Structures are given as structure tokens and as C-alpha cells.
């Protein structure tokens, strides 16, 4: 976006102002990732992000602390579900095919709840992106959070940007080997702890922790721990911004979510240009009336974790982390110019200010955001209704496929079924099984005395599979209108009276055909 704008209309920029302070360190760097000099097969140039100070850096530290605390702490949270069930608040129990999430308990056949949660997450991402750009990328994405953590650790051992550049240029020495080794060891440890935390989501955390410590955990736990330790080390420590630029599909997609009303981290060209080093005039003051506010110190470039120059405009590599805003504001304070040369701004606002309208509001409500919001509301309501109607008792019926029916010696027809009763309550329940809408038919079950009332007990939170036969005697065959007759199985909880039904078919030969 290269609209040429008249800088004199920019709020805060006082025409003709003069300041004396230009005591600012200028960096002799060029952005690593520039569209202008991009090559297809260039080797990666290492980026040395400098530590920024300011509001957005603080927000990022807080988000990082919260995100890491949730990630590492969540498996240790307990949630009482009664004696027969795990008491871990969030547990993906692969061995028993259950997903426990606080009050929610998802069986494999209810996985649509998880799908719904993912759809909600995606729509929320779209909404947030259309309002404020790549907030996810800049603050909350695991790649950003862990890269930030890895860079912080690197800074702890090797110092900030300049010290790191110096160290890399130095010949190898004991000190350099030590600092480099300690950095990589720390990254690997972070990787191990990250992978270690992940496996706790799949098995009771205190038990698994003890098993891991004593070397008795299942092999699969060590395998996944290793995989995630390695990927954390590689993606967060080594690959860093390359994951965002080359591996992640989201930068390619997110362009479709943003428009001229989206708040994006922007360099206000109209205020900054023409840029150049600030030089004091004969009176010892800088004359700002003839030049832009950008003194080309490149503070915004050196803090950038993806190695771009924000002054080149909106670009794919920008993860919108806003660290350049912090860096620039610090400089603006020093040279006594108003903050916000780089700021969250919309294209619409900047174009309006070019026309002299200084109070163009940020438009949050627009068709795009309203549509995303409506979709979120819709999916949310569907999910809530589904959750509200979630049954604690389910019945599944599977008709035998081979043979579809059996002729008995007295001439009657028998069908075999596999019936599954799902008891989702946290207590054992006894159910009575009965037939509906099939007059004259008899029900029997493998393992039950013939003629007895069919009662089965299903233990806490499990499924019980039964082998059941439905027989229509010879005399009853005349009442079957078709080769296939609809009827239903019904189970009733003996104590609570809760019932549920499942329809199926009774199959017989055409017109009671004889062998």
C-alpha cells in the first residue's frame, strides 16, 4: 500500500516542530526477508532479534506465561468423577476410548463434540483475524510462544542481539563452545519438558510421572515424549521464523480474512516519509517541518523475529507481533516526537486521515465480522443443544448379515442381533430389554435362561454387548406384511424408568417361502 499522503494532516505531528534530541543508536542492517531481494534458493540468513521493551512486549510475556502455565499445569488438575473413573480434569484416555474434559465426557461415537470445538476455534480465529489481523500468530500460536521462550533462553546465555552477533563471528573458544552448548542443552531440556507435559494428557499424570522417573512407563510414552522433544527443539530453537514463512499455511489463508477495516501493525508512511537520519541545524535543533518522523534508525528491523522491515508495508512474513511498535515508540520518546509512527491502524483510517478526516472510527461491525459472529453463534447453539440433549443411555442394534434369517424346525423364522447398551452414568445400572411393534415375536438372549425376563446389568460408564434372537413362530408369519418388517428394541432402566429405543428390521423369506 503506497498511497502518497500528506503528512501535515497527521494528528500529533506538529508542523514545524523542532527538537534537539537525536541521541539514538542507529543500526546498520538490512531486513533479512525482503520482497525486493528475495531469491528462490538462498540459504537462510540467521536472524538475531533484539529484546524490545514496551506495552506489547509485556502483553506477549503475559500471554506466554499464561499459555505455558495452562499447557504444563492442566494435566495436574484433578476433577472428581466417582470411584471407577479417572480423576484427571483433562484426559485423552486412549486405552479406554474416553475423552474427559472437566464435566464433559466424550465417547468415541460422540467425537462430533470435538469436531464442533475445532469448528468453533477456527471461526473464532477467522473473526479475530478480520478484526485485528494475525493476533493468533503474533501472541498465542505455540510456534510463537515457544520460539519466544527459546530466544529468551538464548539471550540468557549469549546476551542480546549485538553480543550474539559478536559471538557468532568469534573464532571457536572454550567460552563460545560452553555458551553454545548450554543454549542447546537448555533448548533440549525445554523440548523434553514440553514433550513430557504432552504425554500427561494421555495417562494419569502423577502415575505416569512416577513411571517416567523409574523407567517403567509404556514405550509409546517415551516415543511421543521423544518426538515432541525433538520437534520442539527443531521448530522452536532451530527453525523459528522459517516455520511461519515456509511451513505454515495460515499466512497464505489469512489474507482472505483481512480488509481495509482490519487493524494491522502498520508503518504510517504519510508521517514517516521522507525518512533519513536526523541532523541538527545551525541552531542545534532538528527541523521536522521539512522531513518525516522516521530517522531510519532501524530499531524496528532489529527487534523483528521474522527479519522483515515493517516500513515495506504489509507482507506475508509479518506475524503481527507488534514488537516494532514497542521499538519505534521508544525511539519516538527519545527524539521527542509523538508515539505511534508504527501502530495498529486500518487502511480505511489512514486513507481518511489523508483526506483530512482525523476521527475516522475503527469499524468493528461490518458484514464480514457479523457473518463470522453469526456462524460462531450458530455453531455454539448447535453444540449447546447437542450437549443438553446428550443421553446417558444409548442403544445400538446390529442385524446379523449372514445369515439374514434362520428357519426353525417348527417353521418359524428367527433373526439374530447384536445389541449394545451404553451406560454413560457413573454408576452400574440394570436394564430390561423388550421388543416393540412386533406382535407375537419372542425375544431370547445368549447366556440367559429361556423364558426369563431379559435383564442385564451394565457397569459404570461402559458398553455391554449382547447376542439376542427374535423369533416369529410359524403362526405369526402371516402377520408380517413384507419380507422386511420394522420394529424396535427398547431398554428401560429398572430403577429410574429411563427408556430408549432403536428401530431395526425383521427379515423373513418372501411369502413365508418353504425350502
Amino acid at each position: 500500500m503506497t498511497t502518497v499522503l500528506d503528512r501535515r494532516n497527521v494528528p500529533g505531528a506538529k508542523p514545524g516542530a523542532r527538537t534537539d534530541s537525536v541521541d539514538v543508536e542507529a543500526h546498520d542492517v538490512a531486513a533479512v526477508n525482503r520482497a525486493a531481494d528475495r531469491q528462490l534458493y538462498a540459504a537462510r540468513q540467521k536472524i538475531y532479534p533484539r529484546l524490545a521493551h514496551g506495552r506489547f512486549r509485556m502483553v506477549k510475556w503475559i500471554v506466554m506465561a499464561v499459555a505455558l502455565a495452562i499447557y504444563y499445569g492442566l494435566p495436574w488438575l484433578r476433577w472428581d468423577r466417582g470411584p471407577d473413573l479417572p480423576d484427571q480434569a483433562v484426559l485423552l484416555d486412549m486405552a479406554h476410548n474416553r475423552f474427559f474434559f472437566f464435566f464433559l465426557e466424550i465417547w468415541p461415537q460422540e467425537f462430533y463434540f470435538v469436531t464442533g470445538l475445532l469448528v468453533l476455534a477456527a471461526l473464532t480465529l477467522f473473526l479475530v483475524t478480520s478484526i485485528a489481523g494475525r493476533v493468533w500468530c503474533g501472541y498465542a500460536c505455540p510456534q510463537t510462544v515457544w520460539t519466544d521462550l527459546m530466544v529468551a533462553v538464548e539471550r540468557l546465555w549469549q546476551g542480546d542481539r549485538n553480543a550474539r552477533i559478536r559471538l557468532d563471528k568469534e573464532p571457536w573458544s572454550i567460552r563460545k563452545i560452553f555458551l553454545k552448548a548450554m543454549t542447546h542443552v537448555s533448548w533440549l531440556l525445554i523440548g523434553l519438558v514440553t514433550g513430557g507435559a504432552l504425554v500427561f494428557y494421555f495417562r494419569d499424570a502423577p502415575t505416569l510421572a512416577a513411571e517416567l522417573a523409574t523407567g517403567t512407563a509404556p514405550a509409546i510414552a517415551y516415543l511421543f515424549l521423544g518426538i515432541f522433544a525433538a520437534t520442539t527443539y527443531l521448530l522452536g530453537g532451530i527453525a523459528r521464523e522459517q516455520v511461519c514463512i515456509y511451513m505454515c499455511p495460515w499466512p497464505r489463508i489469512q489474507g482472505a480474512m483481512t480488509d481495509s477495516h482490519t487493524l494491522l501493525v502498520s508503518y504510517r508512511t504519510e508521517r514517516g516519509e521522507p525518512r533519513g537520519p536526523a541532523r541538527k541545524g545551525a541552531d542545534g535543533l532538528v527541523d521536522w517541518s521539512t522531513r518525516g518522523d522516521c530517522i531510519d534508525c532501524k530499531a524496528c528491523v532489529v527487534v523483528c523475529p521474522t527479519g522483515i522491515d515493517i516500513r515495506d508495508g504489509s507482507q506475508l512474513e509479518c506475524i503481527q507481533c507488534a514488537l516494532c511498535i514497542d521499538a519505534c515508540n521508544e525511539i519516538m520518546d527519545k527524539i521527542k516526537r509523538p508515539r505511534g509512527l508504527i501502530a495498529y491502524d486500518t487502511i480505511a483510517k489512514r486513507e481518511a486521515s489523508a483526506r483530512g478526516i482525523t476521527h475516522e472510527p475503527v469499524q468493528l461491525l461490518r458484514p464480514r465480522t457479523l457473518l463470522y459472529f453469526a456462524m460462531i453463534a450458530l455453531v455454539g447453539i448447535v453444540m449447546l443443544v447437542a450437549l443438553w440433549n446428550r443421553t446417558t443411555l444409548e442403544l445400538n442394534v446390529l442385524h446379523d448379515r449372514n445369515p439374514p434369517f434362520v428357519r426353525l424346525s417348527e417353521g418359524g423364522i428367527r433373526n439374530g442381533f447384536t445389541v449394545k447398551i451404553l451406560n454413560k452414568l457413573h454408576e452400574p445400572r440394570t436394564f430390561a430389554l423388550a421388543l416393540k411393534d412386533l406382535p407375537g415375536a419372542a425375544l431370547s438372549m445368549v447366556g440367559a435362561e429361556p423364558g426369563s425376563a431379559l435383564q442385564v446389568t451394565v457397569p459404570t460408564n461402559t458398553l455391554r454387548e449382547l447376542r439376542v434372537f427374535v423369533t416369529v413362530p410359524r403362526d405369526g408369519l402371516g402377520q408380517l406384511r413384507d419380507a422386511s418388517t420394522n420394529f424396535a428394541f427398547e431398554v428401560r432402566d429398572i430403577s429410574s424408568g429411563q427408556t430408549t429405543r432403536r428401530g431395526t428390521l425383521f427379515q423373513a423369506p418372501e411369502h413365508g417361502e418353504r425350502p
Partner: protein
Amino acid sequence: MSDKREIDDVTGVETTGHAWDGIKELNKPLPKWWLMTFYASIVWAIGYMIVYPAWPTLNGYTKGVWGYSQRAAVSNEVQGAKAAQATFRTALEKTPLAEVKNDPDLLRFAMVGGAAAFATNCAPCHGRGAQGFAGYPNLNDDDWLWGGTLPEIETTILYGIRSGDKQSRISDMPKYGVDGILQTSEIDDAAEFVLSLTKRATDTAAVGRGAKIFADQCASCHGAEGKGNPELGAPNLTDDIWLFGGRKADIVQSIFTGRGGSMPAWHGRLDAVTLKSLGIYVHSLGGGK
């Protein structure tokens, strides 16, 4: 080959110095990651040859230091599966046949194991769903040649039918037509009488003549009323189930040639737990008495 590096004027890239008809080759080395992967593959391959079986020799092959073999891996897996089932297998071995159904988990184990053994050993004759074919009984129904109680089914499975085993179930239906015991017309009359047992006869005179023949020739095994006798494997002729077909032509053929299918004895071929599971599975198909 020149000693000096030569730079191509147009592209600014170094050449290899090779020239063909005046065309020079640019030096475009393989990407480093590709080379690294290539070298890593070589190292991997060498390691692989050391630890795994790799090279054929004159009378065998190199075994590799890990001593891996797929056959051993399979038998390890089988042993592992057996060990995992050990609790149920010992319980099934100890529990009397009639009491298995009292333990739902044990019953389910027996049924699933029986189904698997059935699919491998019995399905070729009795069908995948035990639905049977002409001459091979349907095991889902409630009509049993040799009895449908658990012990009777177990005996049939263990020793077979006309299997040659010492304890095999055995009986022999005469070949009335082939051996000339009955005239063709007498066979026809007898068949008409058999049809009358299921109220399908059309010729009452023939039924009358056939009744006499049936009483003389057939009743000793099939019973005076044609209800059959599980002791002798003689089928019930009054019900709706016909192993070799229930039309008159089928019945005539059965009398003419005699009938008597065979089934192998399974004791000795399958282990005791599998045999027990098979019995329980067949009994659970729906017809078990």
C-alpha cells in the same frame, strides 16, 4: 579442465569446465540437504546390513547381529497374544461347559474365540455365518441331527461324524435304490408317505402303500412317527428343515442313494480351550438346546 575458476558471462555462475560442441556446463551442485540425506542413507544402509539379515551366502544368509527374523517375530506375537489371554484361557479350561454362561466376560471371550476358530476351521463347509449348504447343516437353527445340547455339540466337534475316529458318531442309511432293496415304485410310495408327514402328500393311495414300506424299512431309525433319533443321527422328517432338500425329487434321491455326510474329528487338531470355545460358539448361534 582448467585450473582456474571460470565464470559464465551470461548467468554469472561458475562453470564445470566441461565443454561439448562449444556448450559449457554450469556448476550447479546438488543441494546440501539432498547430499546430507544421501550420505545419511548410505550410513543407514551399512548399519542396516550389519544388524539385519542382508546377504545371501552359499548355504544360507547373514543373520545380522540382532538376529531378527520375521518368523520369530510372528511367533513372539502369537506367544504375546496367548500370554495376554492367559487369565481367560485358564478360567475357560477350568470352568465346566455348562457354567461358562454365568460369567458374561468369559462367555464373550469364548464366543469371540470360537467365532475366530470357526471362521478358520469350520466355515469352508458350514459357511461363514454357519448358515450351511445342501448336505452341510445350518448350525443356526434348532434342528440337530446328533443333538443340540452343549455336551452333544462338544462330542460331535471332538470326534466328528463318520470320521474314522474310534469314538466317531456313526450310522449308515441304506442305499435302497442303488443296492436294489426297494423297487423304484416302492421308493416313490415311501417318498409320498414322507411328504405326508409334513402334510404335503397328493396321492393318498401311494401314502397308504408307503406307510407300510416306511414301517418296515425306515422306522427303526427315523421312528414310527418319523420324528428321527439323535442317537443315530437320523433326521426328523416331520419338521421344516431338510438337509438334502424337501421336494419330492430330493426325497426320492435320498432314499435311492442313501445319505450320510462326514465331518472330521477335531480333538488333537485344536487345543482344548479352542474346542471348548467352538462348542460354546456353535451353541450360542441360536439353536443350542
